[in-house]
């Protein structure tokens, strides 16, 4: 199913920084996007070529859907409507609680309702450019192409998007894009979209086509004769280890930002589903691509469990600064005179000012704090925060106007920090927000394991090295409603596959491995809590594989992670039993996988000696400190193959070919 293209020796002449940490494998390529047709015909062609499944046969075909967020919920509903038998899993107590619910800003779609020059091609172009030319062209075009249908579908489901007085949908421009293509439902777009998908899915539960498995966590993938045929899951209430077998498995399990411990992701977001599949042979694409969002509420103390995002729109009116002198850092900001303030973004980027892209704003905030000029409480000896000051805006527009625009964000800020942002400047700091990397998939969203499909944030496919605002929701729903249901049928047309039962050796082996792992956690009886390991891993990742990465730091991080992982397996303390609701046990499994993923992320980051999108390598910058891409050596997707416990991961390169768009260097000065 994957075809090898001629070796790319010529372009990899530069020795990798990660020499000694990995092996180089055969190149890889997508073979599913139709060749020889123009980009705007590819999806239509593929849909036509993908084989059909007769309605009578669909009932006999079963699908396992891991995840019920936008990507999984939408797909479960659609496949259920089509008549397949779907088993949908999520670790929360209801599908409605998937992490997609937290998205605030909005969802992009090339509707061009404003007649402001938007089009499928422009959305495609913006997304590829925003991703710093590290995404696969064909996938992104398709995403833009189906985006308009998403809005139609959601409106028909009753999603209450913002409307204008005429009763038609409102749009806004978002994330520095010049057209208004973002549809929104106040600050709760993700919630409303997810509830739409959830309701559609619950309708299928009532119809009997979808079976709901809430509070179930996938802990292993079952691969039989090279095909994904099922999962091993733990019922989180009873602790029962269950085997679920099917004709095809879909992972829609979301992103892995929680490898950093502190992130804007939900507490339970994890990499387990995809990591287990990776260990069973699915390649992991671009693991080091993470997005760090500049406007989050800073850490307040060492007990912090989670970071809260505040909409980027705040940077439209707020001015960002830190004190010029370290001595002023613990002063009341209102007592610091104008001349002692450093509006550093306005100083360094005079033309873009406070509106520089997410990655730049984030990195500069870190630089200020590293210099010792951060503000707010000291956490572990460093103040990590910069001011976002609205006093100018309040002076200029009046408090009322500011309240109308940002009232709910100000309230949220006050709720969390106990400070009134109308009176004192807000404090913000960047936080991990989204992971562009994920399991490698082809145009059909199929991974390197036949019968294993991956959708939504869990795959690597559409955002390259950086995701534009309001595009993740678009991708989740595009995959779930429109792409997967069309591509998966080509695979299912060969089914139903040979019946297997729970006594099949591959099934027994998978199940046994899960049981052993659970037993190991409980029997280690060490001295350190799971959370303390997670926190330490998070610190390592944030320090060395966060906003700015260096070869030296990454090598150090790999060492630290390995040591920590060894210690974890010898010294972790998980109380309680296996056959009950046991949250420490749940976390232990997730952290164990993060400890392996973290190392791969560092290796990937170490190998990629270029800066692109959210990945900034200090060694690859322009003279004035801007990200410098290296297209000659790194215009490829890094698809990593699991190298075995203690072995080295194997790098397969997928060359990025741009036919519809020409690669350019980004610049913001």
């Amino acid at each position, binding site marked *: 199913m994957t075809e090898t293209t001629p070796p790319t020796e010529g372009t990899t002449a530069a020795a990798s920084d990660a020499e000694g940490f990995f092996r180089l494998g055969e190149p890889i390529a997508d073979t599913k996007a139709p060749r020889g047709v123009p980009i705007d015909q590819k999806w239509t062609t593929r849909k036509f070529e993908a084989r059909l499944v007769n309605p009578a046969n669909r009932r006999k075909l079963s699908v396992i859907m891991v995840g019920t967020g936008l990507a999984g919920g939408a797909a479960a509903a659609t496949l259920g409507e089509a008549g397949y038998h779907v088993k949908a899993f999520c670790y929360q107590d209801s599908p409605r609680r998937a992490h997609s*619910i937290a998205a605030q800003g909005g969802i992009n779609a090339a509707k061009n309702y404003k007649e402001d020059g938007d089009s499928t091609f422009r959305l495609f172009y913006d997304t590829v450019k925003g991703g710093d030319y590290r995404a696969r062209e064909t996938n992104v075009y398709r995403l833009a192409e189906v985006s308009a249908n998403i*809005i139609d579908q959601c409106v028909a489901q009753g999603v209450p998007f913002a*409307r204008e*007085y005429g009763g038609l949908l409102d749009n806004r421009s978002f994330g520095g894009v010049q057209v208004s293509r973002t549809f929104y439902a106040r600050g709760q777009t993700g*919630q409303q979209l997810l509830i739409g998908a959830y309701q559609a899915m619950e*309708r299928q539960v009532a119809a009997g086509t979808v079976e709901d498995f809430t509070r179930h966590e996938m802990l292993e993938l079952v691969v039989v004769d090279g095909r994904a045929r099922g999962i091993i899951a733990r019922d989180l209430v009873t602790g029962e280890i269950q085997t679920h077998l099917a004709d095809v498995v879909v992972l829609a399990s979301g992103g892995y930002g929680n490898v950093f411990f502190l992130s804007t992701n939900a507490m339970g977001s994890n990499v387990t589903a995809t990591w287990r599949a990776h260990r069973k042979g699915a390649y992991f694409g671009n693991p080091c691509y993470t997005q760090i969002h500049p406007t989050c509420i800073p850490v307040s103390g060492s007990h912090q469990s989670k970071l809260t995002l505040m909409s980027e729109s705040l940077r439209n009116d707020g001015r960002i600064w830190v004190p010029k002198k370290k001595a002023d850092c613990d002063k009341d900001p209102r007592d610091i005179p104008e001349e002692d303030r450093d509006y550093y973004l306005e100083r360094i980027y005079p033309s873009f000012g406070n509106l520089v892209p997410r990655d730049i704003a984030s990195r500069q905030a870190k630089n200020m704090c590293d210099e010792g000029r951060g503000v707010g409480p000291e956490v572990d000896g460093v103040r990590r925060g910069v001011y976002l000051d609205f006093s100018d805006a309040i002076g200029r527009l009046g408090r009322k106007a500011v309240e109308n625009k940002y009232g709910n964000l100000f309230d949220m800020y006050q709720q969390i920090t106990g400070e009134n942002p109308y009176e004192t400047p807000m404090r913000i700091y960047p936080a991990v927000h989204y992971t562009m990397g994920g399991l490698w998939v082809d145009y059909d969203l199929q991974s390197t394991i036949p019968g294993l499909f991956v959708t939504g944030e869990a795959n690597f496919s559409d955002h390259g090295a950086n995701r534009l605002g309001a595009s993740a929701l678009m991708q989740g729903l595009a995959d779930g409603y429109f792409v997967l249901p069309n591509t998966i049928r080509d695979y299912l047309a060969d089914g139903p596959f040979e019946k297997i039962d729970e006594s099949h050796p591959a099934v027994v082996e998978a199940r046994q491995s899960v049981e052993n792992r659970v037993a190991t956690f409980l029997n280690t009886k060490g001295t350190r809590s799971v959370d303390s390991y997670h926190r330490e891993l998070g610190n390592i990742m944030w320090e060395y594989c966060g906003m700015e990465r260096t070869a030296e730091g990454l090598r150090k991080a790999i060492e630290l992670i390995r040591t920590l992982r060894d210690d974890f397996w010898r010294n972790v303390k998980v109380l309680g039993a296996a056959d009950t609701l046991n949250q420490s046990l749940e976390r232990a499994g997730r952290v164990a996988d993060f400890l392996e993923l973290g190392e791969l992320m560092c290796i990937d980051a170490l190998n990629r000696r270029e800066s692109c999108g959210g990945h900034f390598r200090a060694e690859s910058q322009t003279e004035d400190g801007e990200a410098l891409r290296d297209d000659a050596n790194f215009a490829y997707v890094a698809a990593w193959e699991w190298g075995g416990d203690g072995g080295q991961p194997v790098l397969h390169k997928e060359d990025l070919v741009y036919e519809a768009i020409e690669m350019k260097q980004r610049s913001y000065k």
Partner: protein
Amino acid sequence: MRLTLKIWRQPNSAAAGELRTYQLDDVSEDTSFLEMLDMLNEQLTGTDEEPVAFDSDCREGICGTCGVMINGQAHGPEVTTTCQLHMRSFSDGDTITIEPWRADAFPVLRDLIVDRGAFDRIIQQGGYISVNTGSAPDAHATAVPKKNADRAFDVATCIGCGACVAACPNGSASLFLGAKITHLGELPQGQAERDTRVVNMVAQHDHEGFGGCTNIGECTAACPKEIPLDVISQLNKDLRTAMRHGL
């Protein structure tokens, strides 16, 4: 600050539970309520006592996963979710009683965690608009008056947390139910199934063992999303209309 915590401990739904008392020191007022419980759990793990099980996920007040009774108030003393409650709402030396939502339709699974599957089953009985993927007309085919769109949105913000049930002296889920009925009933797309929706959802609500509403109004006071009581009135009205139409 220093706190005395009285927390409901119950190993599983079959076993009996009890309130147990713990001391917790050095709680900063900037920690959230759940982070305070995280701290307690670290402390308990250190002394080989199993941590307190409680639900949470987004910790941003939007997923509806969290929720406990704090000193007899659902989600505690502020109008917000438990995860967004911060310790500055308490004082040094306070005793805080923490219990799970209590309703027979929400059985306790462990400690502070309850099973709210009943809400999903209510939605399954009609809390949707039947439109298959791909069969939708253009989004602009039907204009929705802003007034209706806004009201639909206001009530669509329900996060399904269950605080309304927990706070209602009758253990009724009418606020949750009314919110969904009103959300879909305000939109032109929701009209076709309006009668059957309300009849079936109410039947499921009663079947799950929730109490009847006698309009006491504790639910709306506990609701972190401030869903107003008029959704219950709307629910009753829709139910009556449906009966008049012979359902």
